[in-house]
């Protein structure tokens, strides 16, 4: 039983890692720009397809492919900010609808470029860190865990310790006051969009060899991310990380000890309970932070 618990714990840590990368990016975009980016799952998908194109098809070394994929998806974020969200910044629903349109465009581009089928990505490594005979962590999964720790720590440092980070937080708290202080709202929006998209991109790129890459893979990711940010508190980065960990552990343990379908019900129930008890989420406030 101890081994089963340990293996389940490791599975949950991996799930928490990639979910938190996606959810934090989504929260950052919402926090700074006030836009619910429905295309965030497709940014995750774009990161995965970058690996298909670069690593699987063109034999580019995996970590270079991940870096390029991350930058590419970050640039997709800049494109969204410029083409969709900036022109619609005074229309709260406009950005949401535009992101749904962009979601469909990205899915269609993936279908046109790669076809409808699941893509095959050769394994990056088959090594497994073995703790006991029955408890192990595949190194490919370890990459995702390490990446989540590194990137989320870097983001924390950036937001708390740098001038750009302060500007970003100021824009998120009160855009008008921030603008009066000389902070460029457009510039902070660009930075938020790039970072948020790049985090989804790196999550997609690193998990690509571990999941089935297909044009519709973003759907389940965005659903999970929305549950997480609602539980954590919309606009709260800390809340998104803690809710990712809580959701991943609950979902993984329920799947392992009961049932995968029940795990989804429990996850959604968790969200409903939080909404009833604390409508702003565990770490949210009435105003977006």
């Amino acid at each position, binding site marked *: 039983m101890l081994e*089963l618990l340990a*293996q*389940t714990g490791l*599975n*949950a840590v*991996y*799930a928490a890692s990639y979910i938190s990368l996606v959810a934090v990016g989504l929260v950052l975009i919402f926090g700074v720009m006030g836009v619910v980016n429905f295309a965030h799952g497709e940014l995750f998908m774009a990161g995965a397809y970058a690996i298909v194109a670069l690593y699987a098809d063109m034999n580019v070394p995996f970590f270079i492919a991940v870096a390029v994929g991350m930058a590419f998806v970050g640039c997709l974020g800049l494109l969204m900010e410029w083409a969709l969200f900036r022109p619609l910044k005074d229309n709260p629903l406009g950005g949401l609808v535009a992101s749904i349109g962009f979601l469909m465009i990205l899915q269609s581009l993936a*279908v046109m470029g790669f076809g*409808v*089928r*699941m893509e*095959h990505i*050769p*394994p990056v490594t*088959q090594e*497994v860190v073995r703790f006991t*005979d*029955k408890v*192990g962590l*595949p190194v490919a*999964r370890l990459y995702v865990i390490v990446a989540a720790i590194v990137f989320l720590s870097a983001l924390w440092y950036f937001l708390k310790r740098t001038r750009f980070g302060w500007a970003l937080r100021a824009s998120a708290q009160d855009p008008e006051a921030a603008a009066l202080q000389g902070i460029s709202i457009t510039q902070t929006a660009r930075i938020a969009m790039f970072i948020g998209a790049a985090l989804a991109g790196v999550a997609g790129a690193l998990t690509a060899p*571990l*999941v*089935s890459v*297909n*044009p*519709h*893979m973003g*759907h*389940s*990711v965005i*659903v999970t991310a929305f549950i997480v940010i609602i539980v954590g508190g919309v606009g709260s980065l800390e809340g998104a990380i803690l809710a990712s960990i809580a959701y991943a552990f609950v*979902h*993984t343990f329920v*799947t*392992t*000890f009961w*049932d*995968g*379908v029940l*795990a*989804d019900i429990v996850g959604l129930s968790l969200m409903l309970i939080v909404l009833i008890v604390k409508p702003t989420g565990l770490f949210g406030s009435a105003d977006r932070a």
Partner: protein
Amino acid sequence: MIPKFLTAGPSRRTFLKTAGAAAASLGLPRMALAAGEPIKIGFLAPLTGAVAAWGKPGLDGCEIWAERVNAAGGIQLADGAHPIEFVSYDNEYDPAKARTGATKLIREDGVKFIMMLGGDTWPGVQPVADRTGMLFSTLLPSDLSPETTTLVAPAEVHPIYNVTGVEWLAENKPDLKTAVMCAQDDALGLPSVATYLAAFEAAGIEMLDEPLLFDPATTDFAPVVTRLMAKNPQIICLDTCYSDYVHPICEQLFQQGFKGQIISCTADFYDQMIEKTSKDFMEGFVFQFPDFDDPALNSDAINFQDPNGFYAEYNKRHPGQWGAVSWEYASIMDMWKAAAEKAGSAEPDAVMTAMKDGRGAHAFGDADWWGKDLFGIDNALVGDWPVVAIENGKAVIKEFRSIPDWYNRHGDLMVKHMQAYGQMWDQRG
């Protein structure tokens, strides 16, 4: 007759269906085909989306089939020879889109026969079938019911043929005595779960745990595999999981150190699974869908035309894309063509009558129309089915086994488990 009719009275549903069919017949007069005019066949299946792997390769196979038939002179009807032309409609595995597609194929394209994957999309199409009397085929006989009089399942009796793999395993590896199973919780996964449970029970293989059902939206299979391996089973059964699930599950089984036997309905793109795991790990993997370059398919009992040549042509045009359904829709067309030529007509009712007249020429040998027990109607063609195992990195047919023979011995178990999972025709909503 008249007093009896008046006494018993037709049901309202029967009256409406009859009246509807009559109205449709009057509203859509049968178009006589000019000699040489193409006969259009509808292909209504998911060509995009998560289930596209069980639609698109079938269309690719049909196009090869049509080219071959047309090059040989087309189909010979009473009024002369006609080429075959496929008209496809992507239903995205969505019932509403399938209904729109069926209406469009019948009304605008004038097709004479519509092939479908079926499953979740059939309920959307059934009213169109009832109204027009169009002949449809499905790959999933669980769509059949006493109401589906113009629907046939002539290619595969999913999931019933899965019993052959379990039976073969029990006979050839008798030391394997325990199993666990996982499946996606949907219209494809659940009847297959019931079938495997019946097959394992018949074979004396103990299930160590309840089947583990997972949401079809699942992407991370590590928790599923951890649970499967927790009770140290000798066999892990992957049910009728989509290839998007079979691949990551196998990779997880490999990484979490599983050393036992794997059995699955399909193993599409198994070469990729070998690359993700190892040749040793995949050795002996048992499933149900052969590569058509297998020499066993050259037997005289096989009705599929030139399977090796078809496979070679398919792989030339679509390298690495061969899958479970690549040949199935083409094999249905073989049967439809034979029935139409026998009837001398492509009209749906004439073809249906000719098709069900006597035994059917199933791809894997002559077979019987069957299904009353499980589906409430004898519209599924059932005979032998191959058991396939991966040997030295290649799928090899180990044996053809009779599905009706198994059912005659263990049909009660099948009915018991189908009932337990609510999968009998009178239990489905």
